[in-house]
């Protein structure tokens, strides 16, 4: 099966459970958003996939190959926060070595992308600013043709122009070459329109996995007098509530029920970010 498959993956750091029996399938060919709050377990999950972190339990496969096997390693590239490059190395040397290690790496394309970001390839990695270190790593990933590209908070420290350029280049490459992209981030609004499927993780567990479109269509807010809102919400999947004076707002997931003409209820769309905040807030209260 062409997919990333996790089965019951668990990772503990001392008394903290970073991943709590996570089972997840990411089919090949889509752009996924792995969304979660700080400390939700996003980076640990990506670390397990890229074999940088060893799980305490469970199994992880990439296209049926166990993570850690060289077959799995050849299928996935992860851009994370950590810098694994020799600090004294020049950017162009990093490109050279990437070409040696990865058959799908296009050195000419890397130089072209570096030019677009105004990344000086003659600079040493250690002399780059935080933002340009990120850009350097993103450039490596964007010039690489590999079935699975995984990004952990890719745009941290990047200015608006560079972020926009990254999204454009990523979509361009995806549209041209296909492949599977996983974007782990808490900057939800920025990536919302890029995503085909959303995986929401909280406290080391998968809260939900759904197509971005169906989430956007099914999340809505209903506002009105408390009694009316409560009557409407009975039996519905309510993920959160707010109060504004005498007005009650309820955030619902699912089909919208028609209301009679003259009803005081007002409906509005809920953004992916609002939905995310409400879902993870509720988890915190319950936990």
């Amino acid at each position: 099966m062409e997919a990333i498959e996790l089965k019951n993956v668990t990772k503990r750091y001392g008394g903290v459970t970073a991943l709590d029996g996570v089972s997840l399938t990411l089919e090949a060919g889509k752009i996924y958003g792995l969304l979660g709050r700080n400390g939700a377990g996003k980076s640990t999950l990506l670390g397990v996939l890229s074999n940088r972190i060893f799980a305490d339990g469970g199994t992880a496969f990439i296209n049926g190959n166990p993570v850690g096997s060289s077959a799995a390693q050849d299928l996935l590239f992860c851009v994370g926060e950590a810098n694994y490059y020799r600090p004294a190395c020049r950017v162009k040397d990093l490109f050279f070595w990437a070409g040696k290690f990865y058959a799908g790496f296009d050195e000419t394309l890397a130089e072209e992308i570096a030019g677009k970001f105004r990344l000086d390839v003659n600079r040493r990695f250690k002399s780059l600013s935080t933002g340009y270190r990120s850009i350097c790593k993103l450039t490596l990933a964007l010039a690489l043709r590999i079935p699975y590209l995984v990004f952990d908070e890719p745009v941290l420290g990047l200015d608006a122009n560079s972020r926009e350029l990254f999204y454009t280049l990523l979509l361009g490459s995806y549209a041209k070459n296909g492949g599977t992209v996983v974007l782990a981030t808490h900057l939800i609004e920025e990536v919302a329109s890029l995503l085909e499927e959303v995986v929401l993780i909280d406290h080391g567990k998968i809260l939900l996995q759904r197509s971005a479109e169906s989430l956007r269509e099914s999340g809505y807010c209903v506002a009105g007098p408390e009694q009316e809102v409560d009557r409407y919400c009975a039996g519905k999947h309510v993920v959160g509530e707010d109060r504004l004076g005498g007005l009650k707002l309820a955030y619902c997931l699912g089909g919208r029920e028609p209301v009679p003409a003259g009803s005081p209820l007002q409906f509005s769309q809920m953004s992916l970010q609002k939905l995310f905040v409400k879902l993870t807030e509720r988890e915190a209260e319950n936990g």
Partner: protein
Amino acid sequence: MQLDLLSEKPIFQQIAGQIEDAVFTGGLAEGSRAPSTNELAALLGINPHTVLKGMNLLVEEGILEKKRGMGMYVAQGAVEAIRRKRQAQFYRQYVRPLLEEAAKLNMSRADVAALLEKEEKHGSD
């Protein structure tokens, strides 16, 4: 082209709507090449599958047509097809919301009709 991610309308329908607008107002003439899925996806920062879904909507409605290996083109008769479709939607999209708002404001149908009449006179001045 401007998309509203918070609109109740799904993104693929907004994309279809904007291309349709461009065809209807003559920006994209009948027989001309429509923008490619990849061009639109990169320009708008939208998942290419979403863009394709929107364009396929227009193919189903006979507004765009696929030419094998060449991409999508604006179909002959597209403008007329859009006009017929929009006429059919006119009541639901414009008249009903107008009457609903009027009802909230305690305005009768006669009040609304009077305003329409006034607008017509004003327009012909």
